[in-house]
């Protein structure tokens, strides 16, 4: 390999001096730089005044300067938006995982009439762009009396999250062996008890994958709150951000601080759990 390849490299200009791997390394470093610089500028700018952002956009700021954050803390509903996002995302995730596990367990562990059809019904919901059904959804929420109510968001997110959750968890549960359950049945354990005590501990890895795949789009969603929620006190973080950006349109430091605060929770969790995030979010696309 070595001799032939060396001469091969020698004949090429930049590839010859650096080696192919060197060139690839440069491309990767350049790309990582492009990915991270906007985020770094955002964080740096959050600690600067508008004047400093204009005169020295790339300089490292004085991180003790918390004036912008103090303004957000005291003058806006930012904390309320954050809390609303936590409540809505938390409630939706709890419902998705509970209902998704129930359906997946029934579909994967029991044979009954229509099981194949029901699975198809769930999977069909996977790629349908629900945004396009927003007019009937709006009317439905109005008829149910939950427009301008957080329940409307929780219900829609739950329905949207179920197809992928059922899909991932049915596949996972089918790979689990039957022996433990059969043994428990011999001992006279009831079906609910078998599901609770034996299956649930085993399906946790699939629940983590399904959870991550749904939590990010729900936390980040803007469209459904835009249509369903009018009351400022009920707004979610992405929706509240638009109100906030409008109010502080000229105070650049505060705007960047608001963006930084909004991005911080998910960036921090991503950095800690990047492996789970990457596999969770791409698992639907990789089969």
């Amino acid at each position: 390999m070595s001799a032939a390849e060396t001469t091969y490299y020698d004949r090429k200009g930049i590839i010859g001096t650096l080696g192919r791997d060197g060139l690839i390394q440069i491309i990767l470093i350049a790309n990582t730089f492009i990915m991270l610089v906007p985020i770094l500028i955002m964080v740096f700018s959050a600690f600067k005044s508008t004047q400093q952002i204009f005169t020295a956009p790339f300089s490292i700021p004085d991180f003790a300067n918390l004036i912008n954050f103090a303004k957000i803390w005291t003058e806006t509903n930012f904390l309320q938006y954050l809390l609303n996002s936590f409540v809505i995302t938390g409630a939706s995730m709890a419902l998705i995982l509970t209902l998704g596990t129930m359906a997946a367990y029934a579909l994967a562990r029991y044979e009954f009439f229509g099981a194949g059809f029901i699975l198809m019904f769930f999977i069909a919901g996977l790629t349908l762009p629900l945004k396009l059904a927003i007019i009937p959804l709006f009317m439905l929420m109005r008829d149910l009396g939950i427009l301008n109510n957080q329940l409307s968001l929780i219900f829609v997110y739950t329905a949207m999250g179920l197809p992928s959750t059922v899909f991932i968890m049915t596949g996972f549960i089918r790979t689990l062996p039957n022996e433990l359950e059969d043994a428990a049945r011999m001992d006279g354990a009831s079906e609910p008890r078998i599901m609770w005590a034996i299956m649930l501990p085993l399906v946790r890895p699939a629940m983590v994958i399904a959870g991550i795949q749904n939590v990010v789009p729900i936390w980040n969603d803007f469209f459904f709150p835009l249509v369903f929620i009018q009351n400022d006190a009920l707004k979610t973080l992405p929706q509240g951000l638009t109100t906030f950006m409008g109010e502080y349109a000229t105070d650049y430091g505060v705007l960047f601080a608001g963006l930084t605060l909004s991005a911080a929770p998910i960036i921090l969790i991503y950095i800690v759990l990047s492996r789970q995030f990457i596999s969770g979010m791409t698992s639907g696309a990789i089969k």
Partner: protein
Amino acid sequence: MPNLRPTGRGLWITALIVPPLAFVALFIVYPIVSAFAYAFFDWQGLLRGEFVWFENFRIVLFEEPYASWTRNAFSHNIIVFFALMVLQNGLGFFLAYALWRELPGAKFHRVAVFLPVVLSTIIVGYLFKLFLHPLFGVVNISLKGMGLAELAQPWLGQSSTALWALIIANAWHMVGFPTLVFLAGMQRIPTEILDAVRMETRSEWVKIVKIVWPLVAPSTTVVFVLLFVGAFNWFELPYIMAGLDGSPFGSTDVLGLYFYRTAFGNVSSGQQDFGLGSALAVMIFLFIAVIAGVVTVRLRAREIQL
């Protein structure tokens, strides 16, 4: 099989399956079916009027000014789709190829390339909007700093650059997704095949075209379909960066914005028409479903031959 008495077993399965089924039926299936029905009625605000057959479809397709709005928005979606196909998915493929070599630091690069994907589109939209501000944005400030002041311009304020600014913001936001899907595809290529190819050729290019590309075909189907659905659903990014009207002068208008405006009205026109909106929704929906379906079947068939 469980040795329950038939009724007890049926009851237990019903209890497990009905609540999740009800959610999907009520909040996904029912609204989508209704969207089709709504499109055939004349709507007066929130009240349903008479059955008007294909009148709503005729208006949005053939009657001015709707017809030109529809054409304008649709043509922008097409541009967005092809541009992202090249920029985002094309770049994603080569980044995946670079990461696949597992050079020192590859893990760090992988985490970095996926980081923007977890951010909400709203944050990304505002971030780029601030960066592209004609006076205070870092893009123009750095151009001036580099002595290229004549290149500085109101990126989002002129028709010639606005749509491209949104496309680039989208590519930055999402390039990590196809990258990691392609990378996963490459990591499943058996080493024996790769070793065999190394004996045959030293050209990277031949290796990519003849071996890597055909073998990651399953990933290309998924990435293509997801991008297609995403590009024709484009809403948040143009809404934040360019506004609900697709300003300036409709140069960033896309079907998502146009549909939302038609259904729920906007500040300037105040118009709100559920019938025309539903007709648009149905057409976008069918267009996405047909193309995505055809592509999936076609590309899946090609995979089997490989």
